[in-house]
């Protein structure tokens, strides 16, 4: 598959602090690429180098095979970016902000494109209001609209759900997934929220203290044999005892009268569900509490030990 981005031995030092240390990774066309790391791991610095805001101390960024630093203007015309908060001109309307950044993108497109992109991000109806009257979620959506307006192949979104309420986070994830699946964009999304990357990305990179600790397909990097599964039920004080008397007892990690957490292979779930139903337990919800968090902590701890 064609590589959209290839990062080779990228390093950034601020005085005596090494923020990014010899980082290499590749992003393939069509990837939703999760960029995962704790706060201060070097995600934002790397993302900023990918859009030319920060100059690398050494290393190379290639985009579709060409050097980014030598073809910066051409490369940027094919990138849409939202770096951290989408800070916009609050004293201007959303439409004015959108038009302004669209013009700066140096691509010709019909004016109907502005309407289209507002529809895509679900921001029609208030486009003529001043941005300072917008909620954080609306600003994030406008930020995505600005990143999308010139129809770039590569979208770079740095912590796009920061500052959003739970509903806003869910909507933003859905929007990003749609951009990847329906519009075919290659997307880099950085996050310190572990389950966020898991829910959105197909490939991911984990960095810790500026160094790569893991890279690959999300599905392959996570151990699918031991997944945390949470079962929410109508309160039932006797079910735990019954489960513990059976084979399910060994899988229980946490329990109370209305929620049970099991650590087991997801394939066992249908059988467990049947057992619960047979025991007249009213199952409200079954969801995966994936072990990405454990996985991440294991990786970063390993990296700390190796260093």
């Amino acid at each position: 598959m064609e590589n959209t981005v290839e990062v080779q031995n990228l390093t950034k030092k601020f005085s005596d602090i090494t923020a990014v240390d010899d980082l290499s990774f590749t992003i393939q066309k069509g990837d939703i690429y999760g960029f995962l790391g704790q706060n201060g791991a070097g995600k934002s610095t790397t993302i900023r180098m990918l859009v030319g805001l920060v100059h690398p101390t050494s290393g190379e960024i290639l985009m579709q095979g060409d050097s980014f630093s030598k073809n910066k203007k051409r490369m940027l015309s094919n990138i849409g970016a939202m770096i951290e908060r989408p800070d916009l001109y609050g004293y201007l309307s959303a439409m004015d902000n959108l038009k302004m950044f669209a013009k700066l993108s140096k691509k010709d497109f019909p004016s109907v494109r502005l309407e289209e992109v507002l529809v895509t991000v679900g921001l029609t109806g208030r486009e003529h209001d001043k941005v300072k009257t917008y909620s954080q979620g609306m600003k994030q959506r406008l930020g995505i609209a600005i990143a999308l307006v010139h129809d770039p192949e590569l979208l770079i979104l740095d912590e796009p759900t920061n500052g959003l309420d739970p509903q806003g986070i869910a909507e933003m994830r859905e929007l990003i997934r749609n951009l990847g699946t329906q519009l075919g964009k290659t997307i880099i999304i950085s996050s310190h929220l572990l389950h966020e990357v898991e829910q959105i990305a197909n490939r991911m990179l984990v960095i810790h203290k500026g160094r790569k600790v893991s890279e690959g397909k999300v599905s392959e990097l996570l151990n699918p044999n031991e997944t945390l599964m949470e079962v929410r039920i109508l309160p039932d004080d006797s079910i735990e005892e019954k489960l513990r008397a059976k084979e399910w007892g060994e899988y229980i990690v946490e329990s109370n009268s209305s929620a049970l957490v099991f650590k087991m292979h997801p394939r066992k779930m249908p059988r467990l569900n049947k057992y619960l139903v047979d025991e007249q337990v009213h199952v409200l919800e079954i969801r995966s509490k994936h072990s990405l968090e454990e996985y991440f902590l294991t990786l970063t701890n390993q990296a700390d030990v190796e260093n």
Partner: protein
Amino acid sequence: MLRIELYKIFSRPRTYISFAVITAITFIIQLAMYVDGSSFVEFAIQGVGDQFDIQGRVLNGYLITYLILQSLLVQVPLLIALVAGDVLAGEANMGTLRLLLTKPISRTKVVWVKFVSSLVYALALLLWLAIIGLGASVLIFGTGDLINLKSDAFIMLLEDDVLWRYGAALAFAALAMATVAALSVFMSAFADNSVGPIIGTMGVIVVLTIFTNLELPLFNLVKPYLFTTHMVAWKGFFDVPVPYEAIAQSAIVLTIYIIGFVVATMVVFNKKDILS
């Protein structure tokens, strides 16, 4: 991009603070002169009244404009810093610089456009000063010969020999204000909020103006190289004869400063990591 920058500048309410300040100061001077202008004129010419027989309307629009210019051309640089000091640092503070620099525009062009837009703003301020200073004063007080009282000379400029001098003085003032704009943009490249560059520019101008005005041998050595020394060369257009050579020299020094500040800003800004 220039149109966008100008749109941004002139869409912000703070931009019009400067226009309001100029209007207020001009109005106050005009009102004061309207109420008590004759005693001011009597006081001003009392030293020469015994030697010259001064006739005609001394208190006229041209004299008022000269007084306004003398007062305001010290304040206008500070008002220019208010906007020009904000062009890069303000964007960094708002966070919009990140978004702007992820668009396919070179940083050199960003600096150039920011400087030119600041310059347009400065020229708009000067134009406004000309309209309400010269235009309104002439309408209220009429025209007449212009008396220019200096510490060592008494210059009387005939009525029909004045207007072009104002045009030339304002053109030179534009060059001086361009220097201030370039200095402000330069300072703006170092900061991530606009307070620093605005106060920094004001500080530099105040300190250098003190150097320029103090008659001390040490300062006299450096005075020819300070841009503040040359910013007041517009006054030469109200001398007889006009010291064209000195004015041209001042214009060259100011131009060198402008080029220096703009090029230095480009170098600094191109090397800067945007972390805001």
